[in-house]
Structure formats: structure tokens, C-alpha cells
């Protein structure tokens, strides 16, 4: 994202630069929010709801969302399911392989804070935000497809408010 993150700095110095920057931002954000390709990645029961949301009854396609089998082509990752300590480094690796800008929805209690496995377990990571940054937290065990759609709309709102220079995860933190 080298050019994109330097662009606003260059633009703002030019006369009428901010007008161009804002319009460009709007176009790019609309495009990005309307074609969130997600990584097909699920580790437990929540993944069933995610698949259901992707199938014809709830139909992710109408948001321009398709699943990709490779993190290299994905913008969005649903952490759908229980993340164990053994799985955590793999989740981190997949996240790092995604191209920037990248987004994460923590789906279900397990991904938010361990959920049903919060107490008395040696195996489960207590929240996926311990290893990767999360944009939207979606509680439920499992969340219904409607709530997953709601989380995606929330993420779209968030993307549409982004500034050009904030795209890189170095800035997002």
C-alpha cells in the first residue's frame, strides 16, 4: 500500500487537492465496501452458520461478497469458531498473508472471548483479538445468519468512513 498511503500527503499540498482526495476516497471506499471477498475459514460450529449465510437463502452475493479459498485474494476474514492455542499461530499466519487493507469479524462467543470455553480450559484462546486485530465483534453461540449480515453492514459503514491514509494496517495498528 505504499503509493496509496503517500498519496494524500502529496494531494493535500496541491491546489484543490483536498477536493480530489475526498472524491477519490469516496469512490475507492464504495468500491471496497461493496466487494468484500472473504476467506473461507471456519474452525467450529459457527462456520456452519457462515456457510448458511453464504448459501442461497441468505445470499452473501447480494453484498458483492464471495468466498476465496486463498488468503492472498481475500479482504475479510470471519473468525468463525473456537480458536485453540494450537490453532492461534495458524490464524495469525493466514491474517498476515492477506493483502492490505484487511478486515476481521470475530464471529461468535468463542472468537470474541472464549465463549463457552472461557472457564476451566487449557486449550482455548480467550478471544482472537489476543493474536490479530478485530474490526467487528459479533456475539452469539452461534450468531444467526441475520446477525452476521448485520455485522457485515456495520463493517461496510466503517469502511465507508475510512480516510485514504488509514488504509495501511501500520496506521490502523
Amino acid at each position, binding site marked *: 500500500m505504499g503509493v496509496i498511503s503517500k498519496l494524500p500527503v502529496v494531494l493535500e499540498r496541491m491546489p484543490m487537492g483536498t477536493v480530489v482526495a475526498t472524491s477519490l476516497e469516496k469512490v475507492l471506499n464504495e468500491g471496497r465496501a461493496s466487494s468484500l471477498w472473504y476467506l473461507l475459514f471456519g474452525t467450529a460450529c459457527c462456520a456452519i452458520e457462515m456457510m448458511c449465510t453464504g448459501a442461497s437463502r441468505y445470499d452473501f452475493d447480494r453484498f458483492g461478497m464471495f468466498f476465496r479459498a486463498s488468503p492472498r485474494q481475500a479482504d475479510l476474514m470471519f473468525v468463525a469458531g473456537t480458536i485453540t*492455542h*494450537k490453532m492461534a499461530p495458524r490464524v495469525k499466519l493466514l491474517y498476515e498473508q492477506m493483502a492490505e487493507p484487511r478486515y476481521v469479524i470475530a464471529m461468535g462467543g468463542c472468537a470474541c472471548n472464549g465463549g463457552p470455553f472461557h*472457564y*476451566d480450559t*487449557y*486449550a482455548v484462546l*480467550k478471544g482472537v483479538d489476543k493474536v490479530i486485530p478485530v474490526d467487528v465483534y459479533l456475539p452469539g453461540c452461534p450468531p444467526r445468519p441475520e446477525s452476521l449480515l448485520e455485522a457485515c453492514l456495520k463493517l461496510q459503514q466503517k469502511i465507508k468512513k475510512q480516510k485514504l491514509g488509514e488504509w495501511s494496517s501500520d496506521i490502523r495498528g
Partner: protein
Amino acid sequence: MADTATITQLLTQRFPGQVTALDMVPPQTAATVDPAIVSELFAFLAENADLKMNYLSAISGIDRTDHIEIVYFVSSLEYKHKLTVKTRVERIGGKINSIQHILPAANWFEREIWELFGVDFVGHPDLRRFLLPDDWNQGNPMLRDWEGEDFIRMPEVQ
């Protein structure tokens, strides 16, 4: 085909005094045995012409707080009868003979119990890290008093 009375008789004849309790109520017939005899016992169960119990479904470990109970589930594919064998080992540094050379299916079950409870299976060829993360160094997590980093115990409900 042996009914429960025959199994009882065969076991008590072959291992007098070492089968400490028998609970022969079908369908879950159970025998509690001395840990020293497990390898002979399973060899006998598998090879006796009237028993032929050579199919091992699972081995479980249970932390009974003062000892660890090891439970074997064997059955006979030919005669369709089954037996649960219970035995006990020390809680810390417990040792028991491996039955991997008689019933090869025991290999992974024993490895799992070794890892999660710390029971040493003498004669097992391959006791190494199995289900836990590769860099695990926090002991045997299935023991009831185990605590590790970021482990949260369930609060008492009043």
C-alpha cells in the same frame, strides 16, 4: 459366544485374586483389576477361543483426585460381547504396562493419556507430544488441580 457367567468364570480362574471386582450387568460389563496384570489380561482376552476380545474401542483416564483410573473398553467383533476393564495407578509418576504390542490401537490412546495425565506406559515405543501445542511446557492439563497461564477457574455458583 460366552455369556457373562462364562466370562466371569474364565477371568476368576485365570487371574485368581487379581480381578478385584466384577460388575457383570449387561450391556456394560465391567471388571476392576490389579494394574500389574494388564498385559497378561489383554493377551488372554484377545487369544482365548471363547472370548476373542481383540477390538479396543478406547482407553480413558479419569483423575479421581487420590489416584488415576485407567479404563479400557474392549469387545469382540466375532462374538459381539464386550468388557470394560478398570484399573488404577498412582496420581503422580504413575506407571503401567503398555498393551500396544497386543492391541496396536492402544498406541495413540496411551500417548494421549501419557500427555494429559502424566501416566508412564512402560514399553510404549513412541511416547512423545501428541495433541497439545508443540511448545507446550505447562505440565499435564487434565489433572484436576492443574493451573496454567491464562487459565480461569469457573467461579463457585452460590
